[in-house]
């Protein structure tokens, strides 16, 4: 393939199939949630959702399989590689903005909405609604404690969260070591460091699950516990999902290393996953500071 012509793939069946799968996922999820909220049980919605998820999984395997195949067939020029790099970078930027929305919501309620409800500041007049409400953060007693019973306690940052911070920061380092090893074509070391990274990720997820269980069963920190619980779970929850996805992707990369993919010159798939992992790590630092510590 000469570098002056750009590889434009032939027709592909994956996108339209993926649209159908996405539709099934969305329609199924909607139907399921509505049925659950109306207390009617899952039924059709659940079936559609699972069908969509299964279909989407298969499509992703097939589609990425295609791309890997083409890449290894030498169809991709350096220019193509740059397109992938731009694509991945902007995708990560979109993820940053997704988290920014939730961080923004957290700052807004902490700095403005809750104090106003407690009668402080510019818009303190809104205290008329709940004259006894006292502003505090973490919000242990909500204005309407009957509908939103506040948590009994919140999670201490210096136990599991601190440990988790160490785990994730370390995992970013080990991943970088793996990358360095790949650049030297030291494949055994790549495997070793990738494996360590994955283990760190899995342990993180385990701790996070344990923390959630504790929050629900012992602290009364739930989704319904007022806006502290809401912001806590939406931020840590979406972060946890991203770590899970990242770990899965790392596993796939490890698998590809094992079967002999990637070398010191060509390994964009590896790098893309590494970027994603570092991004997830940075989000966690933000979480640790603003959700747990401060």
């Amino acid at each position, binding site marked *: 393939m000469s570098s*002056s*012509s*750009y590889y*434009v*793939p*032939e*027709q*592909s*069946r*994956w*996108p*339209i199939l*993926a*649209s159908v799968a996405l*539709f099934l996922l*969305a*329609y199924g*999820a*909607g139907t399921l*949630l*509505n049925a*659950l909220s*109306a207390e009617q049980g899952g039924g059709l919605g659940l079936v559609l959702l699972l069908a969509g998820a299964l279909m989407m999984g298969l499509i992703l395997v097939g589609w990425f399989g295609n791309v890997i195949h*083409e890449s290894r*067939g030498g*169809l991709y020029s350096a*220019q193509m590689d*740059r*397109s992938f790099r*731009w*694509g991945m970078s*902007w995708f990560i*930027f*979109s*993820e940053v*903005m*997704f988290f*920014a*929305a939730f961080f*923004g*919501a957290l700052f807004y*309620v902490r700095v403005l*909405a809750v104090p106003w*409800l407690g009668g402080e*500041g*510019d*818009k303190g007049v*809104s205290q008329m609604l709940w004259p006894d409400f006292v502003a505090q953060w973490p919000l242990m007693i*909500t*204005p*309407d404690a009957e*509908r*939103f019973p506040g948590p009994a306690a919140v999670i201490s940052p210096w136990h599991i969260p601190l440990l988790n911070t160490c785990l994730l920061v370390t995992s970013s380092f080990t991943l970088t070591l793996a990358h360095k090893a790949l650049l030297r074509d030291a494949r055994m070391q790549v495997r070793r460091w990738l494996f360590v990274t994955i283990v760190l990720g899995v342990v993180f997820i385990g701790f996070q699950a344990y923390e959630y269980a504790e929050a629900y069963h012992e602290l009364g920190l739930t*989704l*319904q516990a*007022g*806006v502290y*619980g*809401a912001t806590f779970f*939406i931020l840590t929850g979406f972060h946890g999902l991203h770590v899970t996805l990242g770990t899965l992707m790392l596993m796939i990369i490890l698998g590809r290393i094992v079967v002999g993919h990637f070398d010191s010159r060509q390994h964009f798939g590896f790098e893309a996953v590494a970027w994603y992992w570092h991004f997830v790590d940075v989000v966690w630092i933000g979480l640790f500071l603003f959700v747990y510590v401060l």
Partner: protein
Amino acid sequence: MSTLDTTLHADAHEHHGPAKGMGRWLFTTNHKDIGSMYLWFSLLMFFVGGCMALMIRAELFQPGLQLIEPGFFNQMTTMHGLIMVFGAVMPAFVGLANWMVPMMIGAPDMALPRMNNWSFWILPFAFAMLISTLFMEGGAPNFGWTFYAPLSTTYAPPSVTYFIFAIHMMGISSIMGAINIIATILNMRAPGMTMMKLPLFCWTWLITAFLLIAVMPVLAGVVTMMLMDIHFGTSFFDAGGGGDPVLFQHVFWFFGHPEVYIMILPAFGIISQIIPTFARKRLFGYASMVYATASIAVLSFLVWAHHMFTVGIPLAGELFFMYATMLIAVPTGVKVFNWVATMFRGSMTFETPMLFALAFVVLFTIGGFSGLMLAIAPVDFQYHDTYFVVAHFHYVLVPGAIFSIMAGVYYWLPKWTGHMLDERMGKLHFWLSFIGVNITFFPMHFIGLAGMPRRIPDYALQFADFNMVASIGAFLFGLSQLIFLWNVIACVRGGRKAEARAWEGAEGLEWEIPSPAPYHTFATPPQLPESLR
């Protein structure tokens, strides 16, 4: 192995035509096919949303409740707004970008062709789901296109869940489309096409794509918080749990204001291509156009609360957002100045695309001025949620965004189809639209200033005359769009043969290739034409 074989094989004879049958459209990776699908889809949505608008205007023809239930009226205003914004205007611009960006920069296709197909095909499914809510128990979403909480949470019909997922799907589609456009423009320009030689349509789209990637995820975030409030008992937008309905508005408008620029920046680009062609002069102030576009984009992140002056924000906020909003008028003014200066002493002719472009310049400016009036916080206390706001945004969106899309379609149709438009029919469409749009929306300024609230199916008697006028204008405008449909179909099917440079004064790579453009263009990077070197 088979895929690789076929692709390598196909590579040997690059210049083959499109596949046969439905498969061509379902599986295509060709930017021209995908561009056409986007444009046809958007036209369909334009008519669907248009029918809803006409239902609204029919109900408002006279005071009192005559034709439709108030609840259904609310569903119509909501669906009209959503369909026009996400289904008509945005996909039309993406369609134009698909067709034109690769040809303008000398690329063989979009950077990520399969993802390009996916971006498009998500849309019909998303809108099928959104429109299906009309037939659900409890009806379609009825809380306005801005879906403020708690109307859209506590008091929403069950169909809101499907609405949320439809928005998620549209967001995924937009983000992937935007990533593709950025990667294409940054990475696939022909040798010698430096950034400051980029056609303005590409520049404005590059910046629009950046805005899309920045704010569509925020929209996804806000609907996700709604979903949590509705189904999982969280209290983001419920003050009882320490949340705040006003939080909804902040997050929504942080998306929403950049969104309105997403709907106008590509329009600026189209107009900046057309006016130089028909004035037979270079664009005046190219570099200032680029910087103005970029500064509009940056400022658009700092003005969102001008939609919330009356909701109760601190005084410092009112002042900040008021001045920041007025600041946007400066780069916008630069643009209008440059268009006028381009025409100044040009040898102008007035073919259909130019007529639409001229109308754009004049009528968009009216919309900009009413925007400035609304930007003045104390004055907005009076105007907010009246028909004055409706007049403002319809002036920037209909004779603004929509006229620019029509101008672009008429301008590039010869390149797409190989046929020239029947100018008589084009002009007929233009004049009827121009008159219709003004009859519809100009009176809304007056009834708005006099205090008629928006989104209400009935009104006080003193507003009756102007409402009747507006409704007549709306039907005139709506029906004239059938001429547009006719013109496009006629142009696809036949007409005078178009030359490669279909318009005498047209410059740029896209006018160097034959009309109609071959199915594959620029398999190898082209030489830049004289005018660009």
